[in-house]
């Protein structure tokens, strides 16, 4: 007979058996533990300061729903202002549900919500680009376009609403995968940028914070379910077999036998990062310029987003429209 008693309060039904530390928790103590841990991460790493206006990316997926719900605790206490943004890339049969759930969550928490679409901003949808690319030689994956345009919209909206921080729902699995991937690929430039917050190199960029980075992905799924949220659990139809996915499977498999492996990967990385950064920064200075087309910060004369817009409108869609 297994013990079904909460190790915190004694309630006789547990929803999680944490092999990493031996805790068995009931629904209430589990939710409490997640919220306390995230708030502690925020406090310890000074992710927000009193009076910050935080713009949270709210896709309607589990990570972002958990994040907005926890950041809302700080909003309710009058410590921060909180607004949410949902980006509609135009992925038919997938994004509609995420947008609907994001709207419902924002309404339930009384958080001001911005919805920005590729279609209204750039005059195309992600589906349209992928359709136009069919049969072309230099076919790019959807994630390449999506990532660049999403980042740009995030930054633009953050500036428009005077947000002092952008919060994203990166979890412990995401962060561990990034550390291991970048290490295996020898990508030091990307590796030294992994952290609790990204310091903006340019005043046009709003600093990004990752309050959920110490919470395992599965626990975030459990947290939103136990909190009674409807969540968009479907995977993106454009998600593909990637190196990240392989690394994710490998780490999860490892985690079954070594339940503290993700925590130790993250903690040890944080310990060695200052040394790597110091050595790396000596040799590499990233150019800090401005895009000649749109005026946004760029490391080259034309930013990646403008390069893609030119290619999409002139080569793929042939509509001559380049006004992003």
């Amino acid at each position: 007979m297994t013990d079904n008693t909460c190790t915190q309060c004694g309630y006789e039904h547990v929803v999680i058996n944490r092999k990493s530390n031996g805790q068995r928790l009931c629904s209430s103590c589990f939710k409490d533990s997640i919220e306390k841990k995230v708030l502690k991460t925020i406090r310890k790493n000074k992710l927000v300061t009193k009076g910050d206006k935080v713009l949270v990316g709210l896709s309607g997926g589990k990570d972002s729903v958990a994040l907005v719900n926890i950041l809302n605790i700080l909003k309710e206490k009058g410590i921060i202002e909180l607004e949410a943004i949902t980006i509609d890339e135009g992925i038919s049969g997938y994004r509609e549900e995420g947008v609907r759930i994001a709207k419902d969550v924002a309404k339930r928490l009384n958080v001001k919500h911005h919805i920005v679409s590729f279609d209204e901003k750039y005059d195309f949808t992600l589906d349209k680009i992928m359709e136009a690319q069919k049969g072309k030689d230099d076919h790019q994956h959807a994630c390449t376009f999506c990532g660049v345009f999403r980042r740009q919209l995030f930054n633009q909206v953050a500036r428009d609403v005077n947000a002092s921080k952008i919060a994203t729902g990166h979890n412990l699995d995401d962060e561990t995968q990034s550390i291991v991937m970048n290490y295996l690929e020898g990508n030091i430039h990307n590796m030294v940028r992994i952290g609790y917050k990204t310091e903006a190199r340019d005043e046009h960029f709003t600093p990004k914070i990752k309050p959920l980075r110490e919470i395992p992905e599965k626990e975030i799924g459990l947290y939103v379910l136990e909190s009674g949220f409807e969540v968009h659990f479907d995977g993106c139809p454009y998600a593909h077999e990637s190196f990240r996915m392989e690394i994710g499977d490998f780490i999860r498999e490892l985690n079954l036998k070594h339940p503290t492996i993700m925590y130790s990967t993250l903690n040890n990385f944080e310990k060695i990062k200052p040394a790597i950064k110091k050595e790396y920064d000596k040799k590499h200075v990233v150019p800090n310029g401005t895009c000649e087309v749109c005026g946004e910060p760029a490391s080259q004369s034309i930013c990646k987003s403008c390069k893609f817009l030119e290619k999409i409108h002139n080569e793929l869609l042939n509509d001559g429209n380049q006004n992003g």
Partner: protein
Amino acid sequence: MSITLINKKDVKEIEYEENLTVEDILKKEDIPIETVVVKINDQTVTEDEKVNDNDKMEIIKVIYGG
């Protein structure tokens, strides 16, 4: 024992031997335990929960990959 297994829109009645846990059934169904949350009769349970005859077991995939 007979249980109702719900995996998204896929609902099926399955016969299993007695005295199985959630973890045993996930293994039999080839579902990676580390990617799902399981509810039995609408209540969230841990992987070592015993499954009984006529139980309704719902599998909610919370992680993609694997």
